[in-house]
């Protein structure tokens, strides 16, 4: 009777482990099954690509962008706009194009989103933690640390709650940044890599 019970316990444990494996692999499967329209890469999200001109984005979104500093006077060299694209709220970072023929045009140099719909090609998104990011990009150059915050007009300090993890690749042209708040991903950003 004891042996039978033991056998039953072993079978039960084995089945539980199998189920748990199935769950993990299905979670992984879910993580990988992200539509390109919701995928953020270092180049952008869906059809919103870094390097696009403001007019191209307006054509894509079929709307005029409302720039944050539209009413400011003087020369504006960079600006932001928030749009809804594929049901995701996305902040677009623009700077004036350096290309001669587009001197008055703003060019997209980065974007960020906090939408849980948006995932990386490795399946990471809002709510994931530091170790998941490190495991997904273990072959990539990574910069990480507390976010810099402006304490006053002249002093910068480091945040106690916000943490960044920036993933680059061998091209060092664009990067993917994860902003973690209290150790969980709160937003993801794709941006042109700044020179040293």
């Amino acid at each position: 009777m004891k042996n039978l019970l033991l056998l039953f316990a072993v079978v039960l444990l084995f089945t539980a482990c199998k189920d748990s494996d199935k769950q993990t692999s299905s979670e992984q499967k879910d993580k990988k099954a992200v539509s390109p329209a919701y995928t953020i890469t270092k180049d952008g999200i869906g059809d919103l690509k870094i390097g696009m001109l403001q007019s191209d984005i307006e054509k894509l979104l079929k709307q005029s962008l409302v720039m944050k500093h539209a009413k400011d006077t003087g020369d504006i060299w960079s600006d932001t706009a928030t749009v809804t694209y594929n049901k995701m709220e996305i902040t677009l970072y623009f700077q004036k194009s350096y290309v001669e023929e587009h001197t008055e045009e703003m060019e997209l140099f980065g974007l960020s989103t906090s939408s849980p719909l948006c995932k990386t090609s490795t399946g990471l998104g809002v709510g994931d933690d530091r170790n998941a990011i490190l495991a997904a990009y273990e072959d990539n150059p990574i910069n990480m640390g507390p976010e810099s915050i402006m304490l006053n007009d002249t002093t910068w300090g480091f945040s106690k709650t916000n943490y960044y993890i920036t993933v680059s690749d061998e091209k060092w042209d664009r990067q993917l940044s994860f902003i973690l708040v209290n150790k969980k991903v709160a937003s993801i950003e794709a941006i042109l890599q700044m020179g040293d």
Partner: protein
Amino acid sequence: MKKVFLFLSIIVFSLVTRAQKDDHTLTFDGIGELKLGLTKAQLEKMLNTRILLKQIGLTESFTETVKTMYKGIEFELDLMRNDNVVAALEGVSTTSPLFKTPEGIGVGSDQLTIINAYEKDLLIISYGSITYTNINQIHASIVFVMENKKVVKVIVEPTAMFRDRE
């Protein structure tokens, strides 16, 4: 009683002296007694040997790396030409597992231990090394050279920002 007290004092004194002699600290100031900024003359006195430069002073090069033994441990010294002295210690490295940071990190430590130990500081993980910079002491970095996710060498050197200022 007096003799016992004297005996204990001698033991304590010798232990303290020994601890001071065997400095196995790995900090932003240097590795053990080899501190950044030491001049060539100070290093020669410590190492009890002459440092023969083949680049600095003889070529246009401002930097030179020399290998040396100190207390039976091998070190690489990165020397840099300076306006006031012939050369000074710009960086230092070793593969010895004896030297540890105050958090216990050194040769043999693994990647995750480093990341967990310095999660409030700046880390750059890049092609075989982890560079650790403390947010309150950004003048220097400790570079952990990695192989198979384990530290095989430690380097103390100025951060790029401070090196460029010089």
